[in-house]
């Protein structure tokens, strides 16, 4: 019986012997609907505000039916100002690079720790595990000095490199590789395939779900990261979406409709991706969340 699985359909929602319309289930449904509606209010109010005229958005009495009607004017103005598409592009480039580098380097290192008895493995692994405890927020000052020295302030690489590795992901991948039977690799190695071939053609294809989980987790973190890009970029042309928005949110001043339109536009890409890949994303986050202990 699959009553407790994440993917179960609505029809099998209740146990066979149970009345689906019992009073207690109705009460639970009402509570749930109320909570979900509460959780959606900030979204809904932002969308509503963004569709109003500036005059209606700035009116002190709350209204669901503004005298000025609804329009996409605020979105048009925000988009024609030009910064948001550029910032979204910067976010995309840096987040994709961070994700690719993190997944590739963590998978290679995780495989080495799982399978290869190399000298220095123990202390390197211990150092990586110990490093999980270090919050990146505490390194901002020395890292910024380093970026100055490397001449990487206000560059894509300056945003990317300090975010492009994750000790916890090495641990997660190593644990996954540990569970793959060594016999699968031995056969290929016997046939003369070297480690890299084995890794590429046998281990990686078996690891697709965990690699996807790690990639999703890293990408969301990178796309939304604020503090490091905020510190390392001062050039408005290179800012990521969260950092760029922060610089203009006060500049909009009293233009509340445009303010909300820009917030909605910034939220949109990840929300749309989520709606399409809901199951994979939820699975990926749960997997990495549990693996990260």
């Amino acid at each position: 019986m699959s009553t407790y699985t994440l993917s179960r359909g609505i029809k099998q929602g209740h146990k066979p012997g149970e009345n689906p319309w019992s009073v207690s289930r109705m009460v639970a449904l009402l509570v749930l609907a109320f909570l979900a509606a509460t959780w959606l209010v900030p979204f809904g109010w932002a969308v509503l505000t963004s569709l109003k005229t500036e005059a209606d958005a700035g009116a002190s009495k709350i209204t669901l039916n503004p005298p000025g009607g609804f329009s996409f004017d605020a979105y048009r103005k925000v988009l024609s100002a030009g910064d948001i598409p550029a910032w979204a592009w910067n976010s995309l480039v840096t987040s994709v690079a961070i994700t690719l580098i993190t997944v590739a380097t963590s998978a290679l290192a995780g495989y080495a720790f799982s399978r290869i008895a190399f000298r220095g493995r123990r202390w390197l692994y211990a150092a990586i595990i110990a490093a999980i405890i270090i919050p990146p927020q505490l390194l901002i000052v020395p890292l910024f000095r380093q970026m100055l020295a490397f001449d990487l302030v206000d560059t894509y690489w300056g945003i990317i490199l300090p975010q492009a590795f994750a000790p916890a992901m090495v641990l997660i991948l190593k644990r996954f590789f540990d569970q793959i039977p060594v016999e699968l690799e031995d056969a290929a190695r016997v046939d003369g395939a070297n480690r890299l071939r084995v890794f590429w053609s046998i281990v990686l294809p078996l690891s697709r779900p965990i690699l996807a989980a790690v990639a999703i987790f890293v990408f969301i973190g990178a796309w939304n990261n604020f503090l490091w890009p905020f510190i390392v970029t001062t050039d408005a042309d290179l800012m990521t979406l969260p950092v760029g928005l922060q610089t203009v949110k006060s500049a909009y001043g009293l233009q509340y409709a445009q303010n909300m339109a820009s917030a909605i536009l910034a939220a949109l890409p990840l929300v749309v991706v989520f709606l399409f890949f809901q199951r994979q994303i939820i699975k990926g986050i749960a997997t990495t969340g549990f693996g990260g202990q």
Partner: protein
Amino acid sequence: MSTAIDSTATSTPVVAEGPESGRARAKRGDTATGWAFAAPFAVLFVLFLVVPALYGLYLSFTGETLTGSGGELLGLANYTEALRDPDMWRSLGNTVWFTVLSTIPLVALSLAFALLVNLGLPGRWLWRLSFFLPYLLASTVVVMFWSWMYNPKLGLINGVLAELGVAPVAWLQDPNVAMISVVVTTLWWTIGFNFLLYLAALQTIPEQQFEAAAIDGAGKWRQLFSIVIPQLAPTTALIVTLQILASLKVFDQIYMLTNGGPAGSTRSIVQYIYESGFTGYRFGYSSAISYLFFAIIVLVSIAQYKLINRRSAS
């Protein structure tokens, strides 16, 4: 072909070649391969974590500033100053208070939400979506939504209160309320992560346990407290650990919602580190506070590790 035959006997064919020299060579080969695989990660790890961690430690003993002047060694002066700095203590106190105020509802409510969604009521995907969606937003977007909700004259919350005849509240400007407002925003934003972990853990409870309990005459509430919550204990331990560490590092939403105000009543320790370094330009002092805070994080982690291990041992 010949290699295929003689290595079926062992799973590590390279080592099995025989004489001592061969074994040594194989080991050296493994070391080279192992490091080649680990190197890309190790280089980034050393350059952007080990080096800044050590460099920060060095800086904490100097009077270094943004411009690079005043880099002379000061011994423990930064540390003794930090320990006597009322702003440091205030920020630390705010951070601990925020951690207490946020961790409790973020654990309790995420469990309640997961239990409700897991009942299998119609519209499951919609409930899951509603609670999880905010987690996908950048802090800046969250802050823009909530600054607007909290707006004293035009915001939705005070607007609704006005309809009900309640006097408006200065959500972000009143020092007695600002921290609560920050916690509410944080709860809304990040509950989705804990919620997902609980939901995933709930699926792993074997159905037979409920059937057995039902046969024994245990009602729904009895099952909740005698089966579900004890089964979730490892998940709860994990969530509490991750949540405390995440809450201690709070910065984004406070910095952008209140900028640490009013009158420093919401300033977190990470914000104080940021301000000492990047608006006060005192890199050495900022690094010293970072290390004091790191010591606290290590202590908290050790305490949690011991608590969890003791519980699972008994």
